[in-house]
């Protein structure tokens, strides 16, 4: 019984993806169950479309900057939360940094529009504003991954050990903290990158015409040829898939290494 439910669920999960892939290679798809003809022209069209090319670049840029900022801000923040003396402070900090998960991206976007369309802060349309928003949306996941890893590893004791063995502060950071956390930093970043690349609600409202990210431009594709829209979507899907496979692999690596502590 459970086997059938699993199979049905998998079919439900995979069917739209399969249809997208089939559609992206179909010559024409109009009023039939499946498209007719085989072609790669849609991919070529997407690849040569200037607005898609720009959007692809914008998405990669925003995702990369968001990741960099998450490390720069998130690592010290995670450390501070982990090292907080009182469990009360830790609990409150955790609730605070997880809050954006419950925040609809739409609400965040309206806030940004209100603040940044004013004359004092007229930055609406800047790609950096997109980065700023994606940091808010992604940071909770990064912090969650890294703080949990710090706790699981017992980072504090590892640092105390290194200190007693003679390591200075910077040595402890470079030799112990960073390498020990490398898997959770990586898997946290992959979640952040996937989130940033696929984010639509916030980006659609806040992006300027020239800083539109891939999903925002993708919406336009659905007003044109079906095959073109499918091909454009498959590209986004491939990016997201690459991110989640990377995340799963690094998470597996982390559990293997951390079996020490068990």
């Amino acid at each position, binding site marked *: 019984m459970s086997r059938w439910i699993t199979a049905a669920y998998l079919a439900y999960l995979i069917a739209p993806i399969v249809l997208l892939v089939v559609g992206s290679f179909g010559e024409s798809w109009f009023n039939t169950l499946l498209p007719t003809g085989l072609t790669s022209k849609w991919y070529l069209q997407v690849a040569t479309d200037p607005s898609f090319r720009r959007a692809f670049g914008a998405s990669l840029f925003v995702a990369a900057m968001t990741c960099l900022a998450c490390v720069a801000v998130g690592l010290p923040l995670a450390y501070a939360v982990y090292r907080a003396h009182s469990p009360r402070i830790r609990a409150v900090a955790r609730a605070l940094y997880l809050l954006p998960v419950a925040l609809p991206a739409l609400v965040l976007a309206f806030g940004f529009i209100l603040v940044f369309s004013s004359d004092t802060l007229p930055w609406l349309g800047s790609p950096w504003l997109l980065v700023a928003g994606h940091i808010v949306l992604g940071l909770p996941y990064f912090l969650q991954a890294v703080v949990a890893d710090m706790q699981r590893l*017992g980072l504090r004791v590892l640092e*105390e*050990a290194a200190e007693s*063995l*003679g390591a200075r502060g910077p040595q402890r950071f470079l*030799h112990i903290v960073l390498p020990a956390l490398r898997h959770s930093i990586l898997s946290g970043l992959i979640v952040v990158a996937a989130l940033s690349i696929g984010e639509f609600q916030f980006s659609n409202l806040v992006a300027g015409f020239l800083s539109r990210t891939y999903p925002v431009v993708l919406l336009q594709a659905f007003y044109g040829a079906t095959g073109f829209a499918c091909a454009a979507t498959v590209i986004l899907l491939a990016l997201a898939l690459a991110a989640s496979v990377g995340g799963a692999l690094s998470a597996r690596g982390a559990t293997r*290494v951390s079996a*020490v502590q068990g």
Partner: protein
Amino acid sequence: MSAMPAVALERVTFRYSGAKAGIFDLSLGIEPGELVVCIGPSGCGKTTLLKLIAGFLRPESGRVRLGGEDVTAATVRARQCGVVFQSYALFPHMTVWENVAYPLRVRDVAVAARRRKASELLELVGLAGLDDRLPAQLSGGQQQRVALARALAFEPRALLLDEPLSALDAATRVAMRDEVRRIQKSQNIAALLITHDQDEALSLADRIAVLREGRLVQYADPHTVYDRPASAFVADFVGRANLIDSTAVAPDAVDTPIGRLLTPAHGAAAGAPLKLLVRPERVEVVAVPNGENVFAARVVRDRFFGATRQIELAIGGGTLKIETATRGAVAQIRIPRDAIQFLPWQ
């Protein structure tokens, strides 16, 4: 002895903010090459004591000396104590030899020399050939040995072990006891080992420091701690004990809940309260129901341990724990006069 103690605490007091726990006016010295085991119930300040020596905590008052040098204000790094943590704290991303050689790496020793030294130490702790494994690929006992080798790699001024054996299974724990002592003696290094296991303390230590609520209640060799405990607390914590409240009735006799006992001369006036200690293994099972300090007994609980039995007896209005190798029935027991000790009344 004129030589400086390797580790010395002088009237050290430390209090955790907002808590009553801490260390109070504690003085203690560890001689070079000596293995001191610190024992006490949880929360008595054992680990605090270790952290004060290692430098993770700074005392509120008093001094900490290593080899005579005052290190009260020195950093953890400057103190150069080898610490073995309860969780081993091996670096999960480094191989066994990299872990052991880490203290040499931060001291800028060349790679080849580091590898050589790590191999030497791994041989010392019985892990020759496992240099390139990851900690995750080792058993608990092996990880323990790596932690020990790492703590010794930089010729530390003292070795501090925080419940190093508590995470091991019973059989490994007993084997590792001997190993820890062998390795510590081979390096002739002053060592402080924290434990809550009295067997570990008795079998390992040159001297035992018994802690209670942040105070040192006895500091002596294992025989003295067991045979001449300083207080009822020590007697009860180290080994099994019958602690009997009694009243003096004659210069060498007391009244107890189990009956009148003839004792060594106690010098107390009649009517004075006295606290007695009788170790369970000193009580004898006898066949004839008469003689000095012989009492009829009823078995309340009988636990069999193979070599011995631990039996709880009801005698008169009191109870008595005994430990005996006898397999037969227990109907009467004798408490030899010299098995009775007097402890300070608390």
